């Protein structure tokens, strides 16, 4: 069963343009100029019950705007969405009973009071019976290990402790769907890891569907099973985490260091960096054989060290973004031409890009195309 269904969802913001002229205030008063910004452009996707989905994108990509439309905070400019069978734009309050949310920057806890008090007030807001509330609170306090600071004013808590309380609070009314907007923003490594493991556990124990926005790759790689990547308001990738990781695995970084200076000859593969005793290579395993390369390298001289690394997920996504931007730029130049002509120009553009930036861009582009189809 689909928990979230989004079709062609769009959001435009109108902002006043302020000019730098001396008389700007005059024109502003009488003829304000507006500029619309497409924050979200015809986004479509769906989320199934029980999934943990990552909603990724750089700052300003439209993540928060989308999540705000799905929770009914913002009215969409176009398209439609259904969340748990409700239309968030029209049935925000009915929907609110069934969802929980943590917006990293906005606290639902009272700053000057201990979390315990906020939980009591939330109990009243979600109309939980006192006995139910007490049982549920105890359960969450234990699961999130809040015992030590449940009676300490929120202003005295660390950010990590506060976020734990926020997430626990958002689960008080047993929501079927949990929205997390940048839950780990500003957290240190340890707190981040704790929150991640809590989220994984949560999904399996509470059977709650989780929808996370983040720009931290670590968050999603550990917790999520599926990723939707949004860029400039459009969905550029929607696939399982496994596939996304597979892309990352397709590319390897190999670093070698020798005891003595050697002559590098690796069959056409140019090193990214090289000194007389060390070098690093980037290889696409779909084009080159990794064992073959390692064998060649070890044959060159006495190895001191060899490292083989996967491509960081950040890079994979950065490639996709880069490819998208390029394609968008090409679409502008190719606008109005016949289809095959556009395709041809796209082909030549690809070659040029490949020559410029090496394989990174080229392979990224083909992946982006795959993601789009």
């Amino acid at each position, binding site marked *: 069963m689909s928990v979230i269904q989004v079709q062609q969802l769009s959001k435009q913001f109108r902002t006043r343009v302020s000019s730098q002229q001396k008389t700007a205030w005059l024109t502003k008063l009488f003829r304000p100029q507006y500029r619309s910004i497409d924050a979200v452009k015809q986004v479509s996707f769906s989320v199934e019950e029980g999934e943990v989905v990552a909603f990724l994108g750089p700052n300003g990509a439209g993540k928060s705007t989308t999540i705000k439309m799905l929770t009914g905070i913002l009215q969409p400019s176009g398209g439609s969405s259904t969340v748990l069978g409700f239309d968030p734009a029209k049935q925000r309050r009915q929907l609110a009973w069934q969802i929980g949310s943590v917006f990293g920057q906005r606290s639902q806890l009272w700053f000057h009071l201990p979390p315990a*008090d906020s939980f009591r007030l939330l109990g009243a807001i979600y109309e939980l019976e006192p006995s139910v509330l007490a049982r549920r609170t105890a359960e969450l306090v234990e699961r999130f290990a809040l015992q030590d600071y449940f009676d300490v004013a929120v202003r005295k808590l660390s950010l990590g402790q506060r976020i734990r309380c926020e997430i626990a609070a958002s689960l008080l009314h047993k929501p079927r769907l949990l929205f997390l907007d940048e839950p780990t923003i500003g957290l240190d490594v340890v707190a981040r890891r704790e929150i991640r493991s809590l989220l994984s556990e949560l999904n399996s124990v509470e059977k709650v569907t989780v929808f996370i926005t983040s720009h931290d790759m670590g968050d999603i790689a550990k917790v999520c099973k599926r990723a939707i990547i949004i860029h400039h308001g459009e969905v550029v990738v929607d696939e399982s985490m496994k596939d996304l990781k597979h892309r990352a695995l397709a590319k390897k970084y190999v670093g070698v260091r020798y005891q003595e200076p050697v002559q590098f000859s690796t069959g056409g593969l140019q090193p990214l960096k090289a000194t007389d005793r060390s070098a690093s290579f980037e290889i696409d395993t779909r084009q080159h054989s990794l064992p073959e390369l390692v064998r060649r390298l070890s044959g060159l001289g006495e190895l001191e060290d060899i490292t083989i690394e996967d491509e960081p997920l950040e890079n994979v996504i950065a490639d996709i973004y880069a490819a998208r931007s390029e394609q968008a730029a090409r679409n502008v130049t190719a606008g109005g031409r016949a289809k095959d002509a556009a395709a041809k120009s796209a082909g030549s553009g690809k070659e040029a890009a490949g020559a410029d930036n090496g394989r990174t861009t080229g392979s990224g582009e083909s992946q982006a195309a795959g993601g789009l189809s």
Partner: protein
Amino acid sequence: MITEKKKQTTLRRNSLGSYLRFMAMAFRINVKSVLEYRVNFMLQFFGMMLNNAAFAAFWAVLIERTGGVGGYGFADIMFVWGFVSSGFGLAHIVFGNIRGLSRIAIEGGLDVYLLQPKDPWLNLLASRTIVSAWGDFVYGFIIMLLLPGIGIERWLIFLSLLVPSALLFSAIFSAAESLCFFMGNSSSISSAISEFLLTFSLYPEGVHAGWYKWILYSLIPSAYIAFVPLHVFQSLSWPLVPLLWGIAIVYILLARLLFRQGLRRYESGNRMDARI
């Protein structure tokens, strides 16, 4: 299954009782946060008393010299100050966010309330208390105790009119703050409206000239906050009590309507450059 869910919804959710429980809980938490800041509270309380005492001294000196201002004697002035002070205090105790509404909206802080299944306007307003308001609130009671010859009936009038007075304050403050949805940064206008309402309420009706008095019965309803209550208090005209309640309810409903109209323009901090 759907019908069952629907039934549950209509039976239990967002009933009057649940709102009362919510408000009671919010109030309890408000009191607790006041106790959390005991020293601050005492200071604010003391400061309020001092401020009011300064003005009481002013009126004492003035009325000693003139024998009365705008038809008010010293006892009348003191009643108005005490009553307005308590009504103003009550509004800020129960609806502590009333003066912060526009700032919260501009910073995108309404999100939290929109995500919860209670009325966002009520939820927002009730989610804070102003510590110094307790000083204002108590001041009226102290005045009532000090004024000579206050019988049970006058106490009842005082108490029965506090709620409409607080509602009227809340309505005007909320409406003034809601202007931010329509005109961006409205803090100057909002605070001016609030200042006008309070100032006009604290001084005798008789000093005002006819050409602008109608404003005090409409846009800046000081009449219903201070002038009419004083009349009711003096002449024990009980029939005016339900009338004042009715007027206050109309004002508060209009204020809520204005907020809801404005909420449609809410952009969750996206438009706002005023973030601090």
